[in-house]
């Protein structure tokens, strides 16, 4: 993999920062000349087009694109230079929806969600609603980034937050290559801090799960086998424990798409995704039970569609006029990036789906 960039595509003024450019790439070339079937045609073969939502289970809220890291594969194009941050007012609108929705899971993501200045207030308020599973996607290094974040493990514990964190490998070399110099050591320290307050320990109710996504142009292997390898290595080498490993496929958008093109892996990767298409994964792709809210309150079928600026195909497009019944009737917007969700055992923010 090439040397890690230190700025987002947006900051670099890259062509690929434009979402229509990304969508154009995903629709042209091998998908326009008939070499590979479009996602629409592929799911139509098993009568699964149009893709429709099931009752809402997960509300995923992206509280901002700012991040202390600039990971090579990041589908958010997050980084310290991104200034899109959810306001308290939009957070309040989200809270109103959280109170009324039947969703059992609230999933906060970013960027680094902890960098939103109102993050703690939002967590405190949301925790009061008593939603069954309250997830915060923490990149781990943020816990060590600055003194003001050192107490995050205690804060998460106090509000019974389910911590889900990224870890691309159990070795330093592979982790730092994808996420930046020094990330591995900081992540290990953060995991120890979380373990120390009880997170991830066997039989502990404080859930700590890890997310694995490949550090290159290849698909993830079997989730259970990877979990076994991760658990063994992290325990033996560092005495670290965690609960589950979610294996996530990199979707060909944003910085990962940029990497695929720059490293001349784009076509092979798309072939690999299409070859691994699993029709039985389609029924459970993330967008069928999840809604994604952006920092400015717009609604999307998933976090990936959010990054492609594909707002829901519904009259209700914003959290301020949220209407679950109306949203239920929509068709989910798809494109070729969706192949990333249906390869092999499928992929979602909660790991495999098939």
């Amino acid at each position, binding site marked *: 993999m090439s040397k890690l960039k230190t700025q987002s595509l947006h900051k670099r003024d890259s062509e690929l920062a434009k979402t229509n450019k990304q969508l154009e790439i995903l629709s042209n070339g091998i998908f326009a000349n008939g070499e590979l079937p479009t996602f629409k045609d592929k799911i139509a073969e098993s009568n699964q087009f149009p893709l429709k939502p099931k009752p809402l289970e997960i509300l995923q809220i992206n509280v901002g694109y700012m991040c202390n890291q600039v990971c090579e594969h990041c589908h958010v194009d997050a980084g310290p230079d991104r200034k899109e941050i959810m306001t308290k007012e939009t957070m309040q609108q989200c809270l109103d929806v959280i109170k009324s929705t039947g969703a059992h899971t609230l999933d906060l993501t970013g960027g680094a969600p902890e960098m939103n200045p109102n993050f703690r207030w939002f967590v405190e308020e949301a925790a009061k609603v008593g939603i069954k599973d309250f997830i915060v996607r923490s990149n781990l290094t943020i816990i060590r980034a600055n003194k003001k974040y050192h107490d995050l493990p205690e804060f998460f514990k106090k509000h019974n937050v389910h911590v889900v964190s990224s870890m691309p*490998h*159990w*070795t330093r*070399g*592979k982790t730092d290559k994808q996420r930046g110099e020094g990330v591995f050591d900081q992540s290990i320290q953060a995991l120890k801090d979380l373990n120390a307050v009880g997170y991830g320990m066997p039989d502990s109710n404080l859930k700590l799960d890890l997310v*694995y996504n*490949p550090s*290159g142009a*290849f*698909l*993830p*292997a*079997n989730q259970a*086998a*990877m979990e076994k*390898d*991760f658990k063994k290595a992290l325990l033996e080498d560092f005495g670290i424990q965690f609960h589950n490993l979610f294996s996530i496929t990199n979707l060909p958008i944003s910085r990962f798409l940029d990497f695929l093109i720059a490293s001349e892996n784009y076509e092979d990767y798309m*072939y690999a995704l299409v*070859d691994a298409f699993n029709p039985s994964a389609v029924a459970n792709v993330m967008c069928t039970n999840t809604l994604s809210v952006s920092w400015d309150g717009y609604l999307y079928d998933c976090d990936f569609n959010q990054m492609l600026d594909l707002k829901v195909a519904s009259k209700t497009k914003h959290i301020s006029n949220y209407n679950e019944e109306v949203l239920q009737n929509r068709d989910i917007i798809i494109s070729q990036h969706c192949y990333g969700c249906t390869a092999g055992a499928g992929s979602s923010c909660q790991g495999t789906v098939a």
Partner: protein
Amino acid sequence: MSKTYYDPTDLRKFGKISDWNEELGSKFFDYYNTVFQEGALSEREKSLIALAVAHTIQCPYCIDAYTGDGLQRGITKEEMMEALHVAGAIRGGASLVHGVQMMNKVNKLEG
């Protein structure tokens, strides 16, 4: 026709060998897939063996396939290189061990 014997994109078409003999093709792929399933050896160990053998038989398709397979399984490049040295050692050793035959012959001829 392509101008080289090997085309990397041909690897994707491996399954097509069944088109000309369905019975034997599917028997082969059934066998192949079963071999790589977890047994007394883990899938990971089998992947590393496959990578070493691929280099021994110098099959470019297999090298591509099992390098990718190894990465997918989280196998590190250090582990891959060590596996290759096992292949290299056995290959080199196989040549050198015949040196005993050479020495025997010299000793016999020279009396």
